[in-house]
């Protein structure tokens, strides 16, 4: 089996910008172009341009699409209005998390499911398998679809300045969070979504591969006067961590249910469908998983200068009570931030804990999420 990393349609663009590359989910992606701290700062203060084409795109359509997704996924997708989107998850039978996803309702009987890069093939296969008995078609379009994101306070102005259809500039400005609209950008048909992974205002633009490089260049040129900067995965990670957003593989995995991640509300028990993982989820909930039993994801603020990193132990009076899942210095806030899975007794905000930083116990405190909230 080939283990050569995949390239997005924007790979030549990144090389032209002297990107430093890294492997992510089997893809060769820009880690940073210059300073990842400068890229992080640009998103918080101006705008960042991201290539997210490694993410997956799976189309689900047919008369049973809504009830199929309600059965295959954890959330209630049937109540999502056309033009809106919802953050959700796909669970295994034991309620373990296969992936976290955003689902966009394109029409009454048509949805776009967006899995994470490393999980796209697994999610597409699971959806295809779960479609048995439903009048739906599941089409994995990940290989043909590119995704570019503009994130930051200037994102709206930049995107509004490049759309060319009548009334579309106003439509961009009025587009609510977690909604999408179709726009034209100089002849390129774009599915424009107001979603993101940074904690800032921003947009994600889905296009066919053939249009990716030209769209990137158009956005880059339009953003120049606003201070737009190309941003890699290092900045993407520090931005989402500050915003308190989980990363599959770090905070989320098959080993936990949504309850341990504090994402119980993402699962809909009100919908009728016996969705995959329902019984196990209900049993875990009844036993108090994540609230009175087991472990729970918490936010930690470092009281010293050193950052805790993924994999480090969390201690209470010298005893291991948890494990850090993500951590680094927060560029915006100026102190170390981390997410950690800890025993529920120690999950309350204000709890004093230590992280084992390579043999040295450094003090951290449980705080409420998110670490950072943007000015609205």
């Amino acid at each position, binding site marked *: 089996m080939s283990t050569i990393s995949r390239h997005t349609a924007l790979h030549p663009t990144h090389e032209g910008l002297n990107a*430093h590359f890294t492997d992510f989910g089997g893809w060769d992606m820009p880690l*940073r172009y210059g300073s*990842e701290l400068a890229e992080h700062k640009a998103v918080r203060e101006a705008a960042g341009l991201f290539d997210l084409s490694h993410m997956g795109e799976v189309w689900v359509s047919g008369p049973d699409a809504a009830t199929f997704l309600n059965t295959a996924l954890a959330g209630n997708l049937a109540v999502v209005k056309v033009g809106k989107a919802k953050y959700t998850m796909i669970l295994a039978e034991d309620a373990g998390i296969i992936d976290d996803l955003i689902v966009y309702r394109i029409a009454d009987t048509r949805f776009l499911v967006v899995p994470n890069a490393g999980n796209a093939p697994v999610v597409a296969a699971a959806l295809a398998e779960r479609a048995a008995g439903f009048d739906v078609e599941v089409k994995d379009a990940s290989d043909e679809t590119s995704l570019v994101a503009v994130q930051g306070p200037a994102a709206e102005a930049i995107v509004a300045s490049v759309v060319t259809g009548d009334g579309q500039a106003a439509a961009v400005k009025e587009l609510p969070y977690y909604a999408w609209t179709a726009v034209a950008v100089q002849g390129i048909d774009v599915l424009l979504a107001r979603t993101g992974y940074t904690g800032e205002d921003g947009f994600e633009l889905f296009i066919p591969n053939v249009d990716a490089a030209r769209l990137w260049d158009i956005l880059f040129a339009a953003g120049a006067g606003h201070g737009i900067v190309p941003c890699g995965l*290092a900045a993407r990670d*520090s931005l989402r961590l500050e915003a308190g957003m989980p990363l599959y593989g770090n905070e989320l995995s098959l080993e936990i249910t949504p309850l341990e991640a504090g994402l119980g509300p993402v699962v809909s028990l009100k919908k009728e469908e016996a969705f995959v993982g329902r019984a196990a989820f209900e049993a875990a909930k009844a036993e108090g998983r994540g609230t009175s039993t087991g472990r729970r994801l918490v936010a930690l603020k470092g009281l010293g200068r*050193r950052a805790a*990193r993924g994999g480090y132990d969390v201690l209470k009076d010298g005893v291991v009570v948890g494990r850090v899942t993500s951590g680094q*210095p927060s560029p915006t806030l100026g102190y170390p931030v981390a997410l950690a899975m800890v025993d529920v007794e120690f999950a309350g905000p204000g709890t004093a804990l230590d992280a084992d930083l*390579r043999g040295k116990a450094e003090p951290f405190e449980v705080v409420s999420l998110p670490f950072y909230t943007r000015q609205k």
Partner: protein
Amino acid sequence: MSAVKSSLRYSAEHEWIDASSPAKVGISQVAADALGDVVYVDVPEAGTALTAGETCGEVESTKSVSDLYSPVTGTIVEVNQAAIDDPSLLNSDPYGAGWLFTVEVESEGALLTAAEYASANGGDVVD
């Protein structure tokens, strides 16, 4: 390509040392570029005894932590407080303002010339 300063010598672990007395030590641009933005520098205090090849501190970037290895056996004379206060100096000027400490050298560990280090690490030798 990362710059490799010709007047310095290098350890395989990416520290450089100059020819002054006491000798100045820092990390190479190859190392700084691989780390990304340096956010924290941890070096021992003046008077600490160092042993060539053994760890003598840490350099931490946003994403990772790397050990510092002493290129020589000797005693630390002075530590660069400016680099401790502003770790970004290791990225912007790793051979100049980003120096880490000076050391009274008793004996050297294995050291490479600039050409040997550049050849092993894909850097460009510069004056």
